[in-house]
C-alpha cells in the first residue's frame, strides 16, 4: 500500500472562458499537513473546487489521483465517499434541516452504514465541547443565521464527524479572531493522524502560528512557484508575495 494519498498531475482548470490553473503538480502523503498560500485570485479556491470536481469549473488538462485511483471526472459525491472533504470558505445555508440530522444523514452516506444514534450523539457532544460550539446550534437549520465564526467551526465539526482521509480547508481561518483560529487549529490536531492528511488553503499565515505543517506551497497565477517547509511561510509573512509575482 502506497503512502501516497493525493496526486495532482499537470492540472489546468478554467471557469467560463478564463483559465485559472495552468499546470498544477502536487503530491500529498498520508500523515502530512500541506499549506497552499497565495495572493487573492491566484487560484487557491479553484484548486480545492477542482479536486472535488465542482461542475462550475472545467478541467482542460491533467489528472487527479486519490490512492492511485483516477478521480478526475468522478462526481463530487463519489469523491467525497472516497474520503475527500472540503471545508468551505462560504458554507451554504440550508433551511429546514438541523445540523444533527444533516450530519447523521451525511455520515450514513459516507460510511454506507447505519449511524448508531447514541454513540453518534456522544461523539458530537465531545467535538462540540472541544470546538466551543453552542449546543443549541445543533437543532438549528444548517448554517442558517450562523455567524461567520460559527459556520467555520461547523465545517470543522463536519470534518471530525465525517472523518475523511484528506481534509481540504479552504480559507477556514479567514475572518476569524485569534481565539477562533486557535479552536480551529485544535480541531485539526484532533483530526490529524498518521493515516490521513490535511491541505490548508489560506492567504495569511495566522493559522500557521498555532499549527505545525510539513510543506508550504506558494501559488501565484495558477502555478505553484515555490515549495518549502514552515519557514517559507515566515518568509512570506515578512516579505509578501512580491518577488514571486510577474515572473
Amino acid at each position, binding site marked *: 500500500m502506497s503512502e501516497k494519498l493525493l496526486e495532482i498531475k499537470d492540472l489546468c482548470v478554467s471557469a467560463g472562458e478564463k483559465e485559472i490553473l495552468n499546470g498544477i503538480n502536487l503530491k500529498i502523503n498520508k500523515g502530512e499537513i500541506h499549506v497552499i498560500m497565495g495572493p487573492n485570485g491566484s487560484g487557491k479556491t479553484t484548486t480545492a473546487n477542482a479536486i*472535488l470536481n*465542482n*461542475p*462550475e469549473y472545467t478541467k482542460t488538462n491533467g489528472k487527479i489521483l486519490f490512492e492511485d485511483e483516477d478521480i478526475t*471526472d468522478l*462526481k*463530487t*459525491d463519489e469523491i*467525497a*465517499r472516497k474520503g475527500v*472533504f*472540503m471545508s*468551505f470558505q462560504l*458554507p*451554504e*445555508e*440550508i*433551511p*429546514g*434541516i438541523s445540523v444533527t440530522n*444533516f450530519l447523521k*444523514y*451525511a455520515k450514513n*452516506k*459516507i460510511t454506507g452504514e447505519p449511524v448508531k444514534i447514541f454513540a453518534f450523539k456522544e461523539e458530537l457532544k465531545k467535538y462540540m465541547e472541544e470546538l466551543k460550539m453552542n449546543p443549541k446550534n445543533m437543532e438549528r*437549520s444548517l448554517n442558517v443565521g450562523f455567524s461567520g465564526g460559527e459556520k467555520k467551526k461547523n465545517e470543522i465539526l*463536519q470534518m471530525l464527524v*465525517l472523518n475523511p482521509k484528506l481534509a481540504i480547508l479552504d480559507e477556514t481561518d479567514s475572518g476569524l479572531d485569534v481565539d477562533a483560529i486557535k479552536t480551529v487549529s485544535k480541531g485539526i490536531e484532533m483530526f490529524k493522524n498518521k493515516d490521513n492528511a490535511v491541505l490548508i488553503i489560506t492567504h495569511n499565515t495566522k493559522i500557521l502560528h498555532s499549527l505545525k505543517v510539513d510543506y508550504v506551497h506558494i501559488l501565484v497565477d495558477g502555478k505553484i512557484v515555490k515549495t518549502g517547509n514552515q519557514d517559507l511561510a515566515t518568509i512570506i509573512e515578512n516579505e509578501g508575495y512580491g518577488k514571486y509575482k510577474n515572473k
Partner: protein
Amino acid sequence: MEKNKTQVEEINRNIYDIKNKDDYDFKIKKGLTKEIINEISDQKKDPDWMREFRLKALEVYNKLELPTWGPDLSELNMNEIATYVRPKSKLNTSWEDVPEDIKNTFDKLGIPEAEKTSLAGVGAQYDSEVVYHSMKEDLIKQGVIYTDMETAVREYPELVKEHFMKCVPVYDHKFVALHGAVWSGGSFVYVPKNVKVDIPLQSYFRLNSPESGQFEHTLIIVEEGASLHFIEGCSAPKYNKVNLHAGCVELYVKDNAYLRYSTIENWSKNMLNLNTKKAIVGKNAKMDWVSGSFGSKISMLYPMSILNGEGSKTEFTGISFAGKGQNLDNGFKVIHNAKNTSSVINAKSISKNGGTCTYRSLVRINENAKNSKCSVSCESLMLDDISKSDTIPVNDIRTDEVEFSHEAKIGKISDKAIFYLMSRGLSEEDAKAMIVRGFAYPISKELPLEYAVEMNNLINLELEGAIG
C-alpha cells in the same frame, strides 16, 4: 461534461393509483339537467327543501359564467361527467362491514390504521357516498356529532338548515352553484360549547369512478369556547378523461373557539380540483388552515377566513407542488371585518418539469377593522428552467390603522448548495430532495405526522422523476 439524464414522464404513484373496477350500485347518466337533479334527489331521498335547494342552485349555475381569470377550464364538459355514483356499500360503522375492495383501498391508504393510533373519529367516502363513519365513545357522550352529511340532513335538520350554504352561498361562483345542485356525501361536525376535542377527526375522500365528479359537503360548527382539529385527505387513481372535484367546506368558528383544518390533497393528474372553503370566525376565536396541494391537473383553491369577531385570528400555512402538466392556482383570502383582528399567511410552492404554480390571494381590511394586523409571506422554488411560478396578490386595505406586511420570493435551487451537499457524500438527487424537503419543512411540520411523512415521500417520489 455530459450528464446522464433520467426523464420519467409519469411516475408511479403506487398506492394512489390502485384502480378498483368501476363497480357501482347506481351511476347517474352524464350531464346536468333538471331531470338529472331530480333523479339525484330521488336516489338520495332528499327532503323537499333540499330538492328545491338543488333545483334553485342549478338555475344559478346556468346563469353564471366560467371565471374569466386563472387556468383555462375549457376542457371541462359537464355533459361528460356523471355527478352521482353510489358505491356498492351502505354506510357502515365497522370496517368489517365495508365491501372488501373498498376496504382494501382505504387499508392501503392507511386510514383504519391511523384511526387506531392517532384519530378520534374517521369518515370515509367512496365516490359519492360515505361508506364508513365512526367516532370514539367519549366524544359522543360529550355531545359531539360527527357523521355523514346525509345523516345530518335527516337527523339535525334545524342545524343544517341554519348553516348549509349560508357561509358559502350558491351564487359565490359557478362551481359553488354546481356543488349546491349535485352535492353528495361529506362530513358534518358539531362540537358543543366548551368541549375540547383533543385528538383529530379525519375524513378521507376517494374518487374511484372514471368520468365522474365528487361533490362532498363538509359542514363544521365549533360552538363558543370549543376546539377541534379536523383533517381532510383526498385522492383518486388516474384516468385518461377528466374527473371533477367541486367540494364545499363551510366552517363556523364561534366566539372564543378554535378550529384547525388540515388538508392533504393528492388527486390524480386528470382531476380538475375546483374546491371552495370558507370559515366565519367569531370574537377572539382562531381559525388555522394547513394545506398541502400535490395532485390535480388544474387546481383553483383559495380557502377564506372571514374575521367577523373582534380580536379574531387566522393563520394559513400552505404548500403546492406542481409537476409536469399541472397548473396549481392556489392561495388564500382573508377579510378583516372587526377591530383587533389578525392574519398570518405563509404560502410556499414548488414547481418542476414544466409545472405551473400560482399564488393568488386577497387580503381585505375593512374600514371597521382598526388596529388589525396582517403579514403575508410567499416563497416559490422552481426546480428547472421550464417550470413556472407566479404571485398575484390583491391587497385591499381601507383603513390606515393597520400593520400590514407582504414578502414574496421566487427562486431556483442553488447550484452552490447542491455542490455543498454533494461534497458531504449526498448524490445530486439526495441533495435536491434535501433542499426541497427543507424548503417545505415549515409547512410539513404543521401537518399531522403521517401526512408529513407522506409529503416527504411524495417529494422524493416526485423528484425521482424530476432530476435532469
